[in-house]
């Protein structure tokens, strides 16, 4: 679920077609009508952030091919886990219930307030709806949250704690208050344009939505004949320990995250075919990320196509890492690299190939399934890189 509408395929197709889902400086998921997807009871008990996640999870679980759902498909529900990230949680509910208290008194504050705004509400809703009984929780690391969820899900499977994990991230914080908070940090684009890596970039554009994936152990997925879209092959995560909000300008800790993800995937820098950048359109991120990519990948960085999904949908904060992992998987499946939209004026300091203008074909190096990286860097200094490999054909 994103400002480009519902559907993983739609997300990548529309981005590759050059569609920008941002209007008036916000990436709203305008197409989303809870009544189309949820019962009255579900809709009124879930904040918008959890509604997004529940709908995205429905799509992912259907694509996973668990016929009859988790409970009806013969899979042990205790072997399925669920990790759903969010940066903030039910911001809209917190604000509306605070208003109820101010205007009508504390006794009128809804008993559904906490279950709506608790950041684990999305994971709770998905597990309840689908009968998932393995471990489940929310993770939070601001703009890296969604990527942490996917990385952690991969580890759960590697450690043998789950056969499958429904994982991802969600965010719905397009309120006047949250906008003011980000704007006063001078993080938001005053022009309302998301153009990562462009000389004229002046901040990020807030977006909303959710991305959910089903990760499954390769043997069980192959055994039941599931359609495999790709493999989360590596996960690397570090911390800047530098500043509350500004990235380490050297990009060194972020660079280490990239190196760790590559090593985890058993791959070399020269194996990387594409990077889905964090690319927020802020001065600081795009410069530090460029440094990080150069230090981690050396000569390969010079010719590697790098594009930012945020040029199309804005910055989905706690959902960003997950929805960008989805976009990266679609890139590998379709063999189409979508461009960094709006990138027209190169910054002399940022001299990599940010895929200007048009989509282009993904060229896999040396005959192996293609390998892509997806970066996520957060306020707080949290860095995550996922290495995602295309499925063996």
């Amino acid at each position, binding site marked *: 679920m994103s400002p480009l509408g519902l559907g993983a395929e739609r997300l990548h197709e529309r981005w590759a077609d050059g569609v920008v889902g941002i209007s008036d400086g916000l990436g709203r998921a305008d197409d989303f009508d809870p009544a189309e997807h949820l*019962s*009255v*009871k579900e809709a*009124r*008990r879930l904040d918008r952030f959890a509604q997004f996640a529940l709908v995205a999870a429905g799509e992912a679980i259907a694509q996973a091919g668990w016929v009859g759902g988790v409970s009806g498909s013969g899979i042990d529900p205790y072997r399925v886990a669920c990790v759903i990230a969010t940066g903030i949680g039910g911001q809209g509910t917190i604000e509306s219930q605070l208003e109820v208290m101010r205007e*009508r008194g504390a006794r009128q504050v809804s*008993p*559904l307030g906490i*279950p709506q705004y608790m950041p684990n509400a999305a994971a709770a809703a998905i597990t309840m709806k689908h009968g998932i009984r393995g471990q489940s929780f929310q993770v939070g690391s601001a703009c890296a949250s969604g990527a942490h969820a996917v990385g952690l899900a991969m580890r759960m499977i590697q450690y043998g704690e789950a056969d499958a994990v429904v994982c991802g991230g969600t965010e719905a914080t397009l309120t006047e208050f949250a906008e003011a908070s980000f704007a006063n940090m001078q993080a938001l684009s005053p022009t309302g344009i998301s153009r990562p890596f462009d000389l004229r970039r002046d901040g990020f554009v807030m977006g909303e939505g959710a991305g959910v994936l089903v990760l499954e152990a390769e043997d069980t997925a192959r055994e039941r004949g599931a359609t495999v879209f790709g493999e989360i092959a590596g996960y690397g995560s570090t911390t800047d320990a530098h500043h509350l909000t500004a990235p380490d300008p050297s990009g060194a800790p972020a660079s280490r995250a990239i190196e760790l993800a590559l090593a985890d995937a058993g791959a070399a820098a020269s194996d990387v075919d594409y990077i889905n950048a964090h690319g927020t359109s802020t001065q600081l991120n795009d410069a530090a990320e460029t440094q990080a990519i150069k230090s981690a990948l050396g000569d390969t960085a010079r010719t590697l196509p790098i594009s930012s999904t945020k040029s199309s949908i804005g910055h989905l904060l706690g959902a960003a890492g997950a929805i960008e992992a989805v976009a990266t998987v679609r890139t590998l499946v379709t063999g189409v690299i979508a461009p960094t939209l709006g990138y027209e004026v190169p910054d002399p300091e940022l001299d990599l190939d940010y895929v200007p203008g048009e989509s282009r074909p993904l060229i896999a190096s040396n005959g192996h399934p293609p390998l892509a990286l997806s970066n996520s860097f957060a306020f707080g200094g949290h860095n995550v890189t996922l290495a995602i490999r295309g499925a063996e054909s």
Partner: protein
Amino acid sequence: MSVTTEQVETRVIETLASFGPDQSQITRSATFEELDIDSLDLVELAQVVEEEYGVVLKGEDMKDLKTVGDAVDLIVERAG
């Protein structure tokens, strides 16, 4: 303030319908269990009742309520 049973019944049914169950299922004899109305919903119903009729219903008042009619009768009794 005096209210009629009909007035309270209409308000209770309208409120419960906004919680999810189909309005046609909500009769005096319908149980909260059948309607999938849980304790969180009942607290919300109590808030509506308090605002509308000034009747304060606490947890112990609510815990024995089984049917829609039980709730209507309790509210009418307290409001009287």
